[in-house]
């Protein structure tokens, strides 16, 4: 497999007088975090497989502002938002897809009030559509019968009422989807939201990601599926904390699909 992925940027396409079907908003985790970069690559491979015309902003992308806003820094959030909106509007972006529920929520819900109006979809919604359109076929039986439990990211689930797209994709893999005792509307947070990812937790008797991982492990899964780079980190740490990393994998929905497609 080649180590270099062909990823066009908006600037390149713009220079060639082209407009992609969709902007892939990579996000900070997807760009810089070693674990999350694998998710980004898996998603890009799927986009190529489905022959989606897409581009990224590359070095013109900047933090969506979500962690600043949840931390209480509305100034910094709006500075980030307005900057990003200027860039996206300059490229006349119509549709945005992202693998990060935090970027998704912010761009979808909080950018319109600041002049950024786009059709924003989460990568699980986008992939579901690609599968429905037959652009991704999912013929491999790699996950057939495997027990997979799905962790609802707060900013995808409760925040935006998206519960089914990721689940439908797992079912498409012929895997056995097992639910945790807290799922969908009652899903328990992984502990990363509200800028907690970037600070030590407050004093307590347990870490939230450990609590959530215990709920996941109760379902005796082979894979804990996530749909958020931060949830992925928290659950991966939780599984390590429980010393189960040899038996239980934490994977993004995009990674599951990419593996099933042998990408």
């Amino acid at each position, binding site marked *: 497999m080649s180590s270099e992925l062909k990823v066009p940027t908006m600037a390149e396409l713009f220079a060639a007088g082209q407009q992609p079907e969709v902007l892939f908003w990579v996000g900070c985790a997807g760009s810089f975090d070693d674990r999350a970069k694998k998710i980004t690559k898996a998603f890009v491979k799927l986009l190529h497989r489905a022959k989606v015309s897409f581009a990224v902003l590359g*070095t013109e992308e900047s933090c969506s502002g979500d962690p600043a*806003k949840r931390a209480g820094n509305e*100034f910094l959030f709006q500075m980030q938002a307005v900057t990003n909106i200027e860039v996206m509007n300059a490229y006349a972006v119509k549709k945005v897809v992202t693998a990060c529920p935090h970027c998704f929520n912010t761009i979808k819900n909080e950018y319109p009030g600041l002049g950024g109006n786009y059709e924003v979809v989460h990568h699980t919604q986008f992939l579901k559509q690609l599968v429905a359109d037959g652009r991704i076929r999912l013929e491999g039986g790699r996950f057939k019968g495997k027990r997979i439990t799905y962790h609802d990211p707060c900013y995808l689930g409760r925040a935006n009422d998206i519960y089914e797209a990721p689940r439908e994709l797992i079912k498409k893999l012929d895997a056995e989807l097992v639910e945790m005792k807290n799922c969908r*509307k009652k899903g328990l947070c992984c502990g990363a939201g509200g800028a907690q990812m970037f600070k030590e937790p407050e004093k307590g008797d347990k870490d939230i990601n450990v609590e959530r991982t215990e709920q996941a492990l109760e379902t005796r899964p082979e894979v804990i599926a996530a749909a958020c780079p931060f949830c992925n980190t928290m659950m991966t740490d939780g599984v390590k904390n429980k010393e189960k990393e040899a038996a239980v994998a934490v994977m993004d929905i995009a990674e599951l699909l990419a593996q099933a497609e042998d990408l």
Partner: protein
Amino acid sequence: MEYLPNILFGIVLIAGIGFFARNVKRLSKSIKLGKDIDLSDNKPLRWKNMARIALGQTKMVVRPIAGILHIIVYLGFIIINIEVLEIIIDGILGTHRVFSPLGVLYDVLIAAFEILAVLVIVGILAFWVRRNIIRLQRFIKPEMKGWPKRDANLILYFELILMGLFLVMNAADYQLQLKGAAHYVQAGSFPVSQFLAPLFQGMSIGDLILVERSAWWLHIMGILFFLNYLYYSKHLHILLAFPNTYYGNLRPKGQFRNLEAVTKEVKLMMDPSADPFAAPAEDAPVPDKFGASDVMDLSWVQLLNAYTCTECGRCTSECPANQTGKKLSPRKIMMDTRDRLEEVEKNIRLNKGTFVADGKQLLGDYISHEELWACTSCNACVEACPISIDPLSIIMDMRQYLVMEQSAAPSDLNNMMGNIENNGAPWPFNQMDRLNWTNES
């Protein structure tokens, strides 16, 4: 002398309702201390939400045991209130069972009230057991010590007494009807209270009338008392759940408000033609304070939320921070907001309409920094509330004050924000490296 009971009744009724009106006025004044927010949009959806969530109790049954018990007590109280209407008319006019000409319908109504009264008693007993014997986690959290616990039990005792009085009244009435006492029309059917007959064995008509009248008077006075107790208790939800669900959030839960005051400044900063040294316009209003440190900084909906909270603790029991032993309890956020609001309201009232600084505020004196920083903004509390209260919005407003007015964020978060400011990512990576992942194996 003949009209003495009617006059007495009129006085009791006017006093009870008058006092209640005074409390409603105070309540509405308190809520208006909050900042204005325009929620006049989308009326059809708002009415629908109110009908579905408050009237239809759809979110109560998410927890089936408490939900079904609550629906029984709720229906009981609403339906039995038809009886209160009759009592009030009887009291004013000196009639007895004025609705009795309804005939069979009246029999059915009274029978339904009695059966509901028994179900309500069962519900109340179950609630009492859950709080005091089983001691469910969410009822014994630290913020439930003292008055909140007593308040909850007092409400159950009131309701129990009211239902008991209602049944005793009917039972005595039925005996009087059997004995053919004057004034006691043959009306109603008494599927429950007829079995209370042994209580009245050997009583004369005079004694029975005494029992029936006492129960009747205590029942109506109890209801008026209860009505006025609401303002001092967590039980205001029986009224405020309706406006609160009407004004509930209609946006996606993940969408937090963008502060307009900030937008203005950001736009100015981003405008290359703006003069950075320009003096502010003469009539420019004093800039808003960013975020909230006290109740007056919150919106009136957030204050309405605080009065509406009945301290059921579903929010707290779903809160990931609380579940893992952190100090944060979304219910306590609401209780603190209300306690402080009542303190401010009293301050203003005693100082003839102006607030005299009392050296206290919601932030710090009621809600600690530690609580605010424990929140993951996961919306579990918002989802859990059966009547559309939003504790998260208060937490976020107070974080804004801490960060934008006081620069009092935890140092890790300051680092994160510094990184975003300098290189456009929460970690110290260069923005120019954002595409490096494409050529890493």
